[in-house]
């Protein structure tokens, strides 16, 4: 394949799509599939064929439309109409309304803040293209970034463009992507690897899953560009086995990309070659840590090892290795196509671009959103998210999963970016955002996360292995109203120990949910300890005390 071929495929695909007067997009990402969008799509196809409408109307399975709470979702691309909660019995009404007045009772307001306030870069194709057809991705300028990079830019220029964009790792810590690529490119060695971390382990996060299910080629293209820039010719996508649909679509996408020649040898008639393999995770949160992930790809237990040496010089099979997460790679193709300066124009001074969040918990609009960095928490929760259901009071928003923290109402006007979140004791994390209302006891929430860290601790270093268990026991005693006078001091003492002495990021950040709830919701703790009462009324006394 050369660049002309790419443009040709895009042109053909475009004109084919324009041939249809109506395109009905049915969301077939995991969320809507589990409310029956698969059957809905089938019913639509059958009915269209029965009515003989198939020459001017087409049904297309697309990736996540965002508003998971209202599934199954359906969009009429040309008319710009969204239908929500669609059932098989609605099919004939929908088809009859085509071209006329929409079906009133199914309408999902598109001009609501949920849709209006989003800026989509990573999700630009989500809900618009069929993730199982490479041609549709190409019709949206897909693989154009790779073509541009390998044919007109030197590897150094690609890295310069990435550095100029100010893109930071979207996996959690926010390490500057350009810097990471530079160190891998500079590392000595002929064999290098690129790994995409799709082991999205944070409970309450589903951004990576949605991207892989809705637009897998974007990640593949990003990895290939990274391979070109760093001098790697082999890539791995390490994806959770718990995401069967994402695995299936990634495998299909890889197959198509190889067949089309955008992966393999001599890509776009250059000397650049790049291949990608899929490796399945097996249910270990700690494998999100770089060195543990590498151990897992090598077929071993995912136990982190001390760094340095960093994977950039001593990684997979001892070779220099670049590890970025799904969303980071997904940002790369548009960044190359449109330039680093364009990307740097979005977001805040130190956090550029946009961020995808998975909104969940006690919030009206649960689902997937993408907003510019620096959007305030209030805008996200109350405007885009539609606020708290059933007239309840907002209590906290949890970001960063088990490594993050609970942010109270007083910080609602804080801009969401890496540094502001760090300042209040939380982290950006991979983008899970869980909203809690007054019915959640924050000690119980801390206990929930500590239970998670305890059972996900790899057990290698003593502070994390035993510390998580001791902290969990204390939190159980507190929620069970069985705590002693010294428990609070011991809790703080152990959190400090784990933070300072654990081997890897999991152990060092595991105390964050406890520390932030202690800082902002101390009353929840004190009420349990002194009055033997749960302020939120959420904890059953003396439950599950070890």
């Amino acid at each position, binding site marked *: 394949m050369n660049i002309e071929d790419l443009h040709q495929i895009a042109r053909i695909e475009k004109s084919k799509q324009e041939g249809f007067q109506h395109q009905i997009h049915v969301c077939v990402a995991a969320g809507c599939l589990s409310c029956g969008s698969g059957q809905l799509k089938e019913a639509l196809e059958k009915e269209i064929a029965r009515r003989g409408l198939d020459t001017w109307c087409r049904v297309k399975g697309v990736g996540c439309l965002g508003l998971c709470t209202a599934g199954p979702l359906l969009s009429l691309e040309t008319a710009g109409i969204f239908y929500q909660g669609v059932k098989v019995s609605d099919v004939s009404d929908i088809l009859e309304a085509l071209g006329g007045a929409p079906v009133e009772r199914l309408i999902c307001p598109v001009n609501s803040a949920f849709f209006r306030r989003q800026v989509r870069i990573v999700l630009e194709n989500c809900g618009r293209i069929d993730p199982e057809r490479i041609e549709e991705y190409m019709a949206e300028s897909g693989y154009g970034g790779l073509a541009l990079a390998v044919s007109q830019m030197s590897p150094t220029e690609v890295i310069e463009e990435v550095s100029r964009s100010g893109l930071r790792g979207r996996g959690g810590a926010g390490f500057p992507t350009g810097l990471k690529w530079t160190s891998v490119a500079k590392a000595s060695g002929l064999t290098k690897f690129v790994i995409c971390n799709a082991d999205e382990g944070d409970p309450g996060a589903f951004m990576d899953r949605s991207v892989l299910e809705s637009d897998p080629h974007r990640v593949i293209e990003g990895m290939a560009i990274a391979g070109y820039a760093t001098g790697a010719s082999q890539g791995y996508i390490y994806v959770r086995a718990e995401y069967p649909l994402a695995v299936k679509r990634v495998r299909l996408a890889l197959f198509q990309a190889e067949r089309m020649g955008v992966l393999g040898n001599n890509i776009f008639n250059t000397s650049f070659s790049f291949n990608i393999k899929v490796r399945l995770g097996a249910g*270990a949160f*700690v494998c999100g840590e770089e060195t543990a992930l590498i*151990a897992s790809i090598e077929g071993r*237990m995912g136990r982190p*090892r*001390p760094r340095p*040496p960093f994977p950039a010089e*001593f990684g997979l099979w*001892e070779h220099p290795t670049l590890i970025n997460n799904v969303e980071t790679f997904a940002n790369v193709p548009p960044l190359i196509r449109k330039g680093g300066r364009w990307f740097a124009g979005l977001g805040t001074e130190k956090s550029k671009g946009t961020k995808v969040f998975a909104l969940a918990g006690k919030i009206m609009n649960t689902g997937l959103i993408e907003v510019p960095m620096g959007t305030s928490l209030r805008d996200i929760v109350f405007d885009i998210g539609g606020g708290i259901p059933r007239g309840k009071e907002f209590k906290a928003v949890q970001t960063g999963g088990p490594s993050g923290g609970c942010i109270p109402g007083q910080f609602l006007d804080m801009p969401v970016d890496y540094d502001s979140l760090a300042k209040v004791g939380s982290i950006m994390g991979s983008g899970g955002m869980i909203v809690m209302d007054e019915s959640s006891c924050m000690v119980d929430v801390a206990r929930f996360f500590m239970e998670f860290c*305890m*059972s*996900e*601790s*790899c*057990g*290698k*270093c*003593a*502070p994390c*292995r*035993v*510390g*998580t*268990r*001791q902290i969990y*026991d204390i939190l159980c005693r507190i929620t069970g109203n069985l705590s002693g006078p010294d428990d609070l001091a*011991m809790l703080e*003492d*152990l959190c400090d*120990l784990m933070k*300072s*002495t*654990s*081997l890897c990021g999991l152990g060092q950040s595991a105390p964050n949910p406890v520390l932030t709830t202690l800082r902002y919701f101390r009353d929840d703790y004190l009420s349990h300890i002194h009055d033997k009462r749960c302020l939120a009324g959420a904890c059953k006394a003396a439950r599950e005390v070890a």
Partner: protein
Amino acid sequence: MKIHPRKNVRSDLNPSRLLTFRIDERVVSAHEDESILSVARQNGISIPTLCHLDGLSERGACRLCIVEVKGVARLLPSCVTFPRQDMEIITASERVVSYRKKILELLFTERNHVCAVCVSNGHCELQNLAVELGISHVRYPYLYPRLAVDASHSRFSVDHNRCVLCLRCVRVCDEIEGAHTWDIMGRGITSRVITDLNQPWGSSETCTGCGKCVQVCPTGALSEKGKSVAEMIKRRQFLPYLQMMRGRQDESWPK
């Protein structure tokens, strides 16, 4: 079990730089590929360790050997940290010592370490560390897990109640004996050392019965049968020698 870059073998082809730096206010010099722990010990400065053992690969896991380095906020494990020119290392600041104590106390709570009835009483590295660090009592609640004793092997026994998961047994079996009979199952607080497919040691097909694992074990977890309280004394002088012999470059002596 390769978890860390192999030490470069120094030779004329691969010279290593000699560095000068400070440990506890003392000026020392060492090669760039010698760990801070090893340099400190050569200079008579003791740093407590549990998972480290001369002659085995490093794990960096017990966290007892953490030290402070001036200008670095994080505490660094000295067994896997290498010196840099003009580095200033403090091995026993108040902060570091207090963390070491807490880690050791956590280890005491994790399993059932009843020194009074232990074969290794008086010869135990865990017990000695408690004395060295001045631990008079354990502030955290003991967890009292229910763990088994496996005495199925004809000469040795393993008592999980006394295991600190240093994994010296796993490493010596893999790296020196070459059998890899031992490994570690599960994760987190439920981790446990196993032989073969988590079967009784006595039924292991791969165990050569060499007993190296018993000798390197820092506590009474692995012991020789027939030893009563305080009678188990470990001898491991063979280790550095074996490592040298097995790691040597020219595989055979001139015959």
